[in-house]
Protein backbone atom coordinates (compact mmCIF):
# COMPACT_ATOMS: atom_id res chain seq x y z
CA UNK A 1 0.00 0.00 0.00
CA UNK A 2 1.29 3.44 -0.90
CA UNK A 3 -0.26 6.83 -0.29
CA UNK A 4 -0.63 9.19 -3.23
CA UNK A 5 1.08 11.89 -1.16
CA UNK A 6 4.38 10.89 0.52
CA UNK A 7 4.01 10.55 4.29
CA UNK A 8 6.42 10.40 7.19
CA UNK A 9 6.81 10.11 10.96
CA UNK A 10 7.16 13.58 12.47
CA UNK A 11 7.59 12.62 16.10
CA UNK A 12 7.63 9.57 18.38
CA UNK A 13 7.41 8.89 22.08
CA UNK A 14 7.97 5.75 24.12
CA UNK A 15 6.71 4.73 27.54
CA UNK A 16 7.75 1.80 29.71
CA UNK A 17 6.56 1.65 33.32
CA UNK A 18 9.06 1.87 36.16
CA UNK A 19 8.56 -1.58 37.69
CA UNK A 20 10.07 -4.93 36.63
CA UNK A 21 8.96 -8.40 37.62
CA UNK A 22 11.79 -10.93 37.21
CA UNK A 23 10.40 -14.06 35.57
CA UNK A 24 12.11 -16.08 38.31
CA UNK A 25 9.29 -14.72 40.52
CA UNK A 26 6.56 -16.18 38.28
CA UNK A 27 8.45 -19.47 38.13
CA UNK A 28 8.97 -19.47 41.92
CA UNK A 29 5.24 -19.15 42.59
CA UNK A 30 3.84 -21.45 39.91
CA UNK A 31 6.58 -23.83 38.81
CA UNK A 32 8.76 -24.39 41.86
CA UNK A 33 11.71 -22.49 40.40
CA UNK A 34 13.45 -21.64 37.17
CA UNK A 35 12.75 -18.63 34.95
CA UNK A 36 10.98 -17.61 31.77
CA UNK A 37 12.65 -17.11 28.41
CA UNK A 38 12.65 -13.36 29.05
CA UNK A 39 14.60 -12.11 32.06
CA UNK A 40 12.06 -9.56 33.29
CA UNK A 41 8.81 -7.90 32.30
CA UNK A 42 7.64 -4.30 32.67
CA UNK A 43 4.73 -3.89 35.10
CA UNK A 44 2.42 -0.89 35.26
CA UNK A 45 1.76 0.52 38.72
CA UNK A 46 -1.73 0.41 40.26
CA UNK A 47 -2.43 3.96 39.04
CA UNK A 48 -1.26 3.33 35.47
CA UNK A 49 -3.32 1.99 32.59
CA UNK A 50 -3.48 2.15 28.80
CA UNK A 51 -4.76 5.73 28.97
CA UNK A 52 -2.03 7.09 31.24
CA UNK A 53 0.74 5.41 29.24
CA UNK A 54 -0.75 6.61 25.94
CA UNK A 55 -0.80 10.18 27.26
CA UNK A 56 2.84 9.99 28.41
CA UNK A 57 4.05 8.63 25.05
CA UNK A 58 1.79 10.96 23.06
CA UNK A 59 3.01 14.11 24.83
CA UNK A 60 6.59 13.35 23.80
CA UNK A 61 5.61 12.48 20.21
CA UNK A 62 3.50 15.62 19.79
CA UNK A 63 6.20 17.88 21.26
CA UNK A 64 8.84 16.32 18.99
CA UNK A 65 6.60 16.77 15.95
CA UNK A 66 5.86 20.36 16.98
CA UNK A 67 2.21 20.00 16.01
CA UNK A 68 0.71 20.84 19.43
CA UNK A 69 -3.05 21.11 18.89
CA UNK A 70 -2.96 20.71 15.08
CA UNK A 71 -3.74 17.01 15.12
CA UNK A 72 -6.57 15.81 12.89
CA UNK A 73 -6.92 12.33 14.40
CA UNK A 74 -5.96 10.36 17.49
CA UNK A 75 -6.23 6.59 17.43
CA UNK A 76 -5.31 4.28 20.27
CA UNK A 77 -4.52 0.68 19.35
CA UNK A 78 -4.81 -1.62 22.36
CA UNK A 79 -6.34 -4.82 23.66
CA UNK A 80 -6.48 -3.50 27.23
CA UNK A 81 -9.00 -0.67 27.01
CA UNK A 82 -9.80 0.73 30.43
CA UNK A 83 -13.52 0.94 29.59
CA UNK A 84 -15.38 -1.71 27.59
CA UNK A 85 -17.59 1.13 26.32
CA UNK A 86 -16.00 4.61 26.35
CA UNK A 87 -13.09 5.57 24.15
CA UNK A 88 -9.54 5.78 25.43
CA UNK A 89 -8.71 8.08 22.51
CA UNK A 90 -11.00 10.88 23.73
CA UNK A 91 -9.26 10.91 27.13
CA UNK A 92 -5.90 11.16 25.36
CA UNK A 93 -7.29 13.94 23.14
CA UNK A 94 -8.57 15.84 26.19
CA UNK A 95 -5.20 15.52 27.95
CA UNK A 96 -3.51 16.93 24.83
CA UNK A 97 -6.04 19.75 24.56
CA UNK A 98 -7.42 18.55 21.20
CA UNK A 99 -11.16 18.64 20.47
CA UNK A 100 -11.84 19.21 16.74
CA UNK A 101 -10.45 15.80 16.01
CA UNK A 102 -11.30 12.29 14.84
CA UNK A 103 -10.80 9.92 17.78
CA UNK A 104 -11.19 6.15 17.95
CA UNK A 105 -9.85 3.01 19.60
CA UNK A 106 -8.57 0.16 17.47
CA UNK A 107 -8.52 -3.51 18.41
CA UNK A 108 -6.56 -6.20 16.61
CA UNK A 109 -4.77 -8.01 19.43
CA UNK A 110 -1.07 -7.14 19.25
CA UNK A 111 -1.22 -5.32 15.90
CA UNK A 112 -3.83 -2.71 16.88
CA UNK A 113 -1.09 -0.09 17.12
CA UNK A 114 0.36 -0.58 13.65
CA UNK A 115 -3.21 -0.77 12.35
CA UNK A 116 -3.72 2.73 13.80
CA UNK A 117 -0.52 3.84 12.02
CA UNK A 118 -1.89 2.44 8.75
CA UNK A 119 -5.17 4.35 9.05
CA UNK A 120 -3.45 7.60 10.06
CA UNK A 121 -1.20 7.13 7.02
CA UNK A 122 -4.26 6.86 4.79
CA UNK A 123 -5.94 9.94 6.26
CA UNK A 124 -2.77 12.02 5.88
CA UNK A 125 -1.97 10.60 2.46
CA UNK A 126 -5.46 11.40 1.17
CA UNK A 127 -5.27 14.96 2.45
CA UNK A 128 -8.16 14.58 4.92
CA UNK A 129 -5.89 15.59 7.81
CA UNK A 130 -2.46 17.22 8.11
CA UNK A 131 -1.18 15.30 11.12
CA UNK A 132 -2.43 12.29 13.06
CA UNK A 133 -1.39 10.49 16.23
CA UNK A 134 -1.28 6.69 16.54
CA UNK A 135 -0.79 5.26 20.04
CA UNK A 136 0.23 1.61 20.41
CA UNK A 137 -0.14 0.75 24.11
CA UNK A 138 -1.08 -2.16 26.31
CA UNK A 139 -1.21 -3.37 29.88
CA UNK A 140 -1.14 -6.98 28.78
CA UNK A 141 -3.10 -9.54 30.73
CA UNK A 142 -1.87 -13.00 31.67
CA UNK A 143 -3.83 -15.46 33.79
CA UNK A 144 -1.93 -16.25 37.02
CA UNK A 145 0.14 -19.37 36.39
CA UNK A 146 -0.39 -19.30 32.62
CA UNK A 147 2.60 -19.26 30.27
CA UNK A 148 1.53 -15.75 29.22
CA UNK A 149 2.22 -14.48 32.73
CA UNK A 150 5.96 -14.75 32.11
CA UNK A 151 5.81 -12.25 29.26
CA UNK A 152 2.55 -10.20 29.40
CA UNK A 153 3.93 -6.70 30.06
CA UNK A 154 3.00 -3.02 29.93
CA UNK A 155 4.24 -0.19 27.72
CA UNK A 156 4.07 1.20 24.23
CA UNK A 157 4.82 4.04 21.87
CA UNK A 158 3.10 6.86 20.01
CA UNK A 159 3.76 8.22 16.53
CA UNK A 160 2.76 11.47 14.87
CA UNK A 161 2.41 10.98 11.12
CA UNK A 162 2.19 13.80 8.58
CA UNK A 163 3.01 14.65 4.99
CA UNK A 164 6.65 14.05 4.14
CA UNK A 165 8.68 17.26 4.34
CA UNK A 166 12.19 18.43 5.08
CA UNK A 167 11.24 18.41 8.79
CA UNK A 168 10.19 14.76 8.79
CA UNK A 169 12.24 12.39 10.90
CA UNK A 170 11.43 9.14 9.10
CA UNK A 171 9.73 8.54 5.76
CA UNK A 172 7.08 5.84 5.52
CA UNK A 173 7.82 4.46 2.07
CA UNK A 174 5.00 1.93 2.07
CA UNK A 175 3.33 -0.97 3.83
CA UNK A 176 1.43 -4.19 3.34
CA UNK A 177 -1.08 -6.11 5.44
CA UNK A 178 -1.89 -9.80 5.57
CA UNK A 179 -4.79 -11.27 7.59
CA UNK A 180 -6.63 -14.56 8.04
CA UNK A 181 -9.13 -16.12 10.45
CA UNK A 182 -6.75 -17.98 12.74
CA UNK A 183 -7.81 -18.92 16.27
CA UNK A 184 -4.49 -18.76 18.07
CA UNK A 185 -5.37 -16.35 20.90
CA UNK A 186 -8.53 -14.53 21.97
CA UNK A 187 -10.44 -12.99 24.84
CA UNK A 188 -14.23 -13.21 24.87
CA UNK A 189 -16.42 -10.28 25.93
CA UNK A 190 -16.51 -10.03 29.73
CA UNK A 191 -13.56 -12.34 30.26
CA UNK A 192 -10.63 -10.97 32.25
CA UNK A 193 -7.82 -13.02 30.73
CA UNK A 194 -7.15 -14.23 27.17
CA UNK A 195 -6.98 -17.86 26.13
CA UNK A 196 -4.60 -19.38 23.64
CA UNK A 197 -4.21 -22.59 21.70
CA UNK A 198 -0.53 -23.45 21.94
CA UNK A 199 -0.26 -25.51 18.75
CA UNK A 200 -1.75 -22.65 16.72
CA UNK A 201 0.53 -20.02 18.23
CA UNK A 202 3.71 -20.63 16.27
CA UNK A 203 3.58 -21.82 12.65
CA UNK A 204 -0.08 -21.19 11.65
CA UNK A 205 -0.25 -17.83 13.39
CA UNK A 206 2.94 -15.86 14.11
CA UNK A 207 5.32 -17.31 11.53
CA UNK A 208 2.81 -17.64 8.68
CA UNK A 209 1.52 -14.08 8.97
CA UNK A 210 4.85 -12.38 9.70
CA UNK A 211 6.70 -14.20 6.94
CA UNK A 212 3.90 -13.71 4.40
CA UNK A 213 3.59 -9.99 5.12
CA UNK A 214 7.35 -9.41 4.89
CA UNK A 215 7.69 -11.47 1.70
CA UNK A 216 4.78 -9.56 0.16
CA UNK A 217 6.51 -6.32 1.17
CA UNK A 218 9.72 -7.48 -0.52
CA UNK A 219 7.80 -8.27 -3.71
CA UNK A 220 5.69 -5.11 -3.82
CA UNK A 221 8.57 -2.75 -3.06
CA UNK A 222 11.32 -4.76 -4.76
CA UNK A 223 13.50 -4.97 -1.66
CA UNK A 224 15.49 -7.65 0.14
CA UNK A 225 16.83 -8.11 3.70
CA UNK A 226 20.25 -6.68 2.87
CA UNK A 227 18.58 -3.37 1.91
CA UNK A 228 17.72 -2.75 5.57
CA UNK A 229 19.97 -1.56 8.39
CA UNK A 230 17.35 -2.52 10.99
CA UNK A 231 14.40 -4.88 11.25
CA UNK A 232 11.82 -4.93 14.06
CA UNK A 233 9.34 -7.75 14.55
CA UNK A 234 6.52 -8.35 17.01
CA UNK A 235 7.99 -10.00 20.09
CA UNK A 236 5.69 -12.40 21.95
CA UNK A 237 8.80 -14.07 23.40
CA UNK A 238 12.55 -13.79 22.78
CA UNK A 239 12.64 -16.73 20.31
CA UNK A 240 9.91 -16.05 17.71
CA UNK A 241 11.25 -12.76 16.30
CA UNK A 242 14.77 -14.15 16.01
CA UNK A 243 13.54 -17.27 14.24
CA UNK A 244 11.27 -15.35 11.85
CA UNK A 245 14.04 -12.87 11.07
CA UNK A 246 16.52 -15.67 10.40
CA UNK A 247 14.10 -17.53 8.12
CA UNK A 248 13.51 -14.29 6.17
CA UNK A 249 17.25 -13.67 5.74
CA UNK A 250 17.92 -11.01 8.39
CA UNK A 251 20.92 -11.11 10.72
CA UNK A 252 21.06 -10.64 14.50
CA UNK A 253 22.88 -7.35 13.91
CA UNK A 254 19.80 -6.05 12.05
CA UNK A 255 17.30 -7.06 14.75
CA UNK A 256 19.12 -6.77 18.08
CA UNK A 257 18.45 -3.03 18.60
CA UNK A 258 14.69 -3.43 18.37
CA UNK A 259 14.54 -6.72 20.26
CA UNK A 260 13.25 -5.70 23.69
CA UNK A 261 11.31 -8.77 24.84
CA UNK A 262 14.23 -10.27 26.81
CA UNK A 263 14.27 -7.27 29.17
CA UNK A 264 10.68 -5.94 29.23
CA UNK A 265 8.49 -8.82 27.99
CA UNK A 266 5.64 -8.61 25.49
CA UNK A 267 3.90 -5.24 25.50
CA UNK A 268 1.34 -6.59 22.99
CA UNK A 269 0.20 -3.66 20.78
CA UNK A 270 3.22 -1.72 22.01
CA UNK A 271 5.72 -4.45 21.21
CA UNK A 272 6.96 -3.74 17.67
CA UNK A 273 6.25 0.04 17.88
CA UNK A 274 8.46 0.20 21.01
CA UNK A 275 11.14 -1.74 19.14
CA UNK A 276 10.90 0.82 16.34
CA UNK A 277 11.32 3.64 18.88
CA UNK A 278 14.53 1.97 20.14
CA UNK A 279 15.80 1.88 16.55
CA UNK A 280 14.89 5.52 15.88
CA UNK A 281 16.87 6.42 19.02
CA UNK A 282 20.10 5.44 17.21
CA UNK A 283 19.37 5.25 13.46
CA UNK A 284 21.35 7.38 11.01
CA UNK A 285 19.89 9.35 8.11
CA UNK A 286 19.00 7.14 5.12
CA UNK A 287 19.00 3.98 7.24
CA UNK A 288 16.18 1.72 6.05
CA UNK A 289 14.05 0.06 8.71
CA UNK A 290 11.60 -2.82 8.40
CA UNK A 291 8.75 -2.91 10.92
CA UNK A 292 6.48 -5.95 11.12
CA UNK A 293 3.75 -6.43 13.70
CA UNK A 294 1.66 -9.49 14.43
CA UNK A 295 -1.79 -9.58 15.96
CA UNK A 296 -3.56 -12.77 16.93
CA UNK A 297 -6.72 -13.61 15.16
CA UNK A 298 -4.60 -13.01 12.97
CA UNK A 299 -2.62 -10.57 10.86
CA UNK A 300 0.61 -8.68 10.25
CA UNK A 301 1.38 -5.14 9.06
CA UNK A 302 4.81 -4.63 7.49
CA UNK A 303 6.31 -1.20 6.78
CA UNK A 304 9.37 0.18 5.01
CA UNK A 305 10.76 3.25 6.74
CA UNK A 306 13.73 5.49 5.97
CA UNK A 307 15.38 7.68 8.61
CA UNK A 308 15.90 11.35 7.70
CA UNK A 309 18.39 14.02 8.77
CA UNK A 310 16.04 15.87 11.23
CA UNK A 311 15.82 12.68 13.32
CA UNK A 312 19.28 13.38 14.74
CA UNK A 313 18.26 16.64 16.43
CA UNK A 314 14.57 16.01 17.05
CA UNK A 315 15.05 12.72 18.92
CA UNK A 316 16.89 14.66 21.64
CA UNK A 317 13.42 15.88 22.70
CA UNK A 318 12.37 12.34 23.57
CA UNK A 319 13.24 9.90 26.32
CA UNK A 320 15.49 7.11 24.95
CA UNK A 321 13.99 3.64 25.19
CA UNK A 322 17.26 2.38 26.72
CA UNK A 323 16.87 4.88 29.59
CA UNK A 324 13.30 3.72 30.17
CA UNK A 325 14.51 0.13 30.28
CA UNK A 326 17.51 0.67 32.53
CA UNK A 327 15.89 3.08 35.01
CA UNK A 328 13.67 0.66 36.93
CA UNK A 329 12.79 -0.94 40.25
CA UNK A 330 12.33 -4.69 40.68
CA UNK A 331 9.27 -5.98 42.49
CA UNK A 332 8.27 -9.41 43.79
CA UNK A 333 5.20 -11.44 42.85
CA UNK A 334 3.27 -10.07 45.84
CA UNK A 335 3.66 -6.46 44.74
CA UNK A 336 2.85 -7.51 41.16
CA UNK A 337 -0.48 -8.99 42.26
CA UNK A 338 -1.29 -5.73 44.05
CA UNK A 339 -0.35 -3.53 41.10
CA UNK A 340 -2.26 -5.55 38.53
CA UNK A 341 -5.43 -5.92 40.62
CA UNK A 342 -5.10 -9.65 41.13
CA UNK A 343 -5.91 -9.28 44.84
CA UNK A 344 -9.49 -9.07 46.13
CA UNK A 345 -10.28 -7.32 49.42
Amino acid at each position, binding site marked *: MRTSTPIAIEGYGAYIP*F*YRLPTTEVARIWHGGGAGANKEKAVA*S*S*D*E*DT*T*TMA*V*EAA*RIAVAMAGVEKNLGAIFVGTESK*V*YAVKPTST*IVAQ*ALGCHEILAADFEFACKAGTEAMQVISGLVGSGMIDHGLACAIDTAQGRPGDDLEFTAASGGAAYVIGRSSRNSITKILGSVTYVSDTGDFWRRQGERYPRHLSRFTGEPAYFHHVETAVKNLFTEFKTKPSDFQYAVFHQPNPRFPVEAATRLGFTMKQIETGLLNPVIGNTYSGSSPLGLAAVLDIAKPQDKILLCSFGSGAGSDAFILEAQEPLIEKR*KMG*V*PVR*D*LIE*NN*VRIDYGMYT*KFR*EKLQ*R
Partner: protein
Amino acid sequence: MLGNKCEKCQAEFFPPVNICRACKSIDLKPLEMPGAGKILSYTLQKESVAGFEEQEPMVFGLVELSNGVRLVAQIVDFPYESLKIGSKVKAVFRRVKADGPSGQIYYGYKFGPPRSPRETSATEE
Protein backbone atom coordinates in the same frame (compact mmCIF):
# COMPACT_ATOMS: atom_id res chain seq x y z
CA MET B 1 -0.95 21.69 34.29
CA LEU B 2 -2.48 25.02 33.40
CA GLY B 3 -1.83 27.86 35.84
CA ASN B 4 -1.71 31.58 35.20
CA LYS B 5 0.62 34.59 35.29
CA CYS B 6 0.07 38.15 36.46
CA GLU B 7 0.60 40.52 33.55
CA LYS B 8 1.43 43.33 35.95
CA CYS B 9 4.00 41.83 38.36
CA GLN B 10 4.82 38.55 36.49
CA ALA B 11 3.95 36.33 39.50
CA GLU B 12 2.95 32.78 38.47
CA PHE B 13 0.28 30.63 40.08
CA PHE B 14 -0.94 27.05 40.15
CA PRO B 15 -3.78 26.37 40.38
CA PRO B 16 -4.82 29.55 38.56
CA VAL B 17 -6.09 32.45 40.69
CA ASN B 18 -8.63 35.20 39.90
CA ILE B 19 -6.68 37.96 41.69
CA CYS B 20 -2.88 38.16 41.87
CA ARG B 21 -1.82 37.28 45.42
CA ALA B 22 1.23 39.54 45.08
CA CYS B 23 -0.14 42.80 43.60
CA LYS B 24 -3.95 42.21 43.56
CA SER B 25 -4.14 42.75 39.81
CA ILE B 26 -6.93 40.96 37.93
CA ASP B 27 -4.93 41.01 34.68
CA LEU B 28 -3.86 37.35 34.56
CA LYS B 29 -3.16 35.13 31.52
CA PRO B 30 -3.18 31.31 31.35
CA LEU B 31 0.28 29.75 31.62
CA GLU B 32 1.37 26.13 31.26
CA MET B 33 3.43 25.10 34.29
CA PRO B 34 6.90 23.61 33.67
CA GLY B 35 6.08 20.11 34.97
CA ALA B 36 9.50 19.63 36.53
CA GLY B 37 10.78 20.49 39.98
CA LYS B 38 12.05 19.15 43.30
CA ILE B 39 10.60 17.87 46.56
CA LEU B 40 10.72 20.29 49.49
CA SER B 41 9.02 17.98 51.98
CA TYR B 42 7.07 14.72 51.96
CA THR B 43 5.04 12.38 54.11
CA LEU B 44 3.69 8.83 54.03
CA GLN B 45 -0.07 8.30 54.39
CA LYS B 46 -0.98 4.75 55.40
CA GLU B 47 -4.76 5.18 55.76
CA SER B 48 -6.73 6.76 52.92
CA VAL B 49 -10.30 7.85 52.31
CA ALA B 50 -12.64 5.67 50.26
CA GLY B 51 -11.61 5.26 46.64
CA PHE B 52 -7.88 5.32 47.25
CA GLU B 53 -7.44 2.02 49.12
CA GLU B 54 -5.65 0.30 46.22
CA GLN B 55 -2.91 2.93 46.29
CA GLU B 56 -2.09 2.67 50.00
CA PRO B 57 0.38 3.58 51.32
CA MET B 58 0.42 6.93 49.50
CA VAL B 59 3.25 9.47 49.49
CA PHE B 60 2.45 13.18 49.28
CA GLY B 61 5.01 15.88 48.73
CA LEU B 62 5.42 19.63 48.65
CA VAL B 63 6.88 20.21 45.20
CA GLU B 64 8.62 23.36 44.01
CA LEU B 65 8.40 23.66 40.23
CA SER B 66 11.33 25.02 38.24
CA ASN B 67 9.52 28.40 38.01
CA GLY B 68 9.28 28.61 41.80
CA VAL B 69 5.57 27.76 42.06
CA ARG B 70 4.86 25.34 44.92
CA LEU B 71 2.12 22.73 45.09
CA VAL B 72 1.16 19.60 47.01
CA ALA B 73 0.85 16.42 44.99
CA GLN B 74 0.96 12.64 45.22
CA ILE B 75 4.47 11.26 44.69
CA VAL B 76 4.71 7.96 42.80
CA ASP B 77 7.36 5.48 41.62
CA PHE B 78 9.83 6.37 44.37
CA PRO B 79 10.61 3.52 46.74
CA TYR B 80 9.86 5.39 49.98
CA GLU B 81 13.28 4.73 51.46
CA SER B 82 14.95 6.34 48.44
CA LEU B 83 12.92 9.56 48.63
CA LYS B 84 14.86 12.61 49.81
CA ILE B 85 14.25 16.31 50.30
CA GLY B 86 15.61 17.81 47.10
CA SER B 87 14.76 14.74 44.94
CA LYS B 88 14.12 15.79 41.32
CA VAL B 89 10.58 15.11 40.11
CA LYS B 90 8.51 15.51 36.97
CA ALA B 91 4.76 15.65 36.44
CA VAL B 92 3.16 12.39 35.29
CA PHE B 93 -0.37 11.61 34.07
CA ARG B 94 -1.99 9.00 36.32
CA ARG B 95 -5.22 7.57 37.61
CA VAL B 96 -6.31 9.56 40.63
CA LYS B 97 -9.24 7.36 41.67
CA ALA B 98 -12.13 5.31 40.34
CA ASP B 99 -15.76 5.12 41.43
CA GLY B 100 -15.51 1.42 42.24
CA PRO B 101 -15.11 -1.34 39.64
CA SER B 102 -17.99 -0.12 37.43
CA GLY B 103 -17.81 3.66 37.85
CA GLN B 104 -15.89 6.40 36.11
CA ILE B 105 -12.11 6.64 36.31
CA TYR B 106 -10.59 10.02 37.16
CA TYR B 107 -7.20 11.10 35.86
CA GLY B 108 -4.83 13.85 36.87
CA TYR B 109 -1.25 14.84 37.58
CA LYS B 110 1.12 13.33 40.12
CA PHE B 111 4.89 13.59 40.37
CA GLY B 112 7.47 10.88 39.81
CA PRO B 113 11.20 10.52 39.24
CA PRO B 114 12.81 11.57 35.93
CA ARG B 115 13.44 8.46 33.82
CA SER B 116 16.37 9.74 31.83
CA PRO B 117 19.39 12.06 32.25
CA ARG B 118 17.62 14.25 29.67
CA GLU B 119 14.66 14.68 32.00
CA THR B 120 16.92 15.21 35.01
CA SER B 121 18.61 18.11 33.25
CA ALA B 122 15.14 19.50 32.41
CA THR B 123 14.29 19.60 36.13
CA GLU B 124 17.35 21.80 36.71
CA GLU B 125 16.27 24.48 34.24
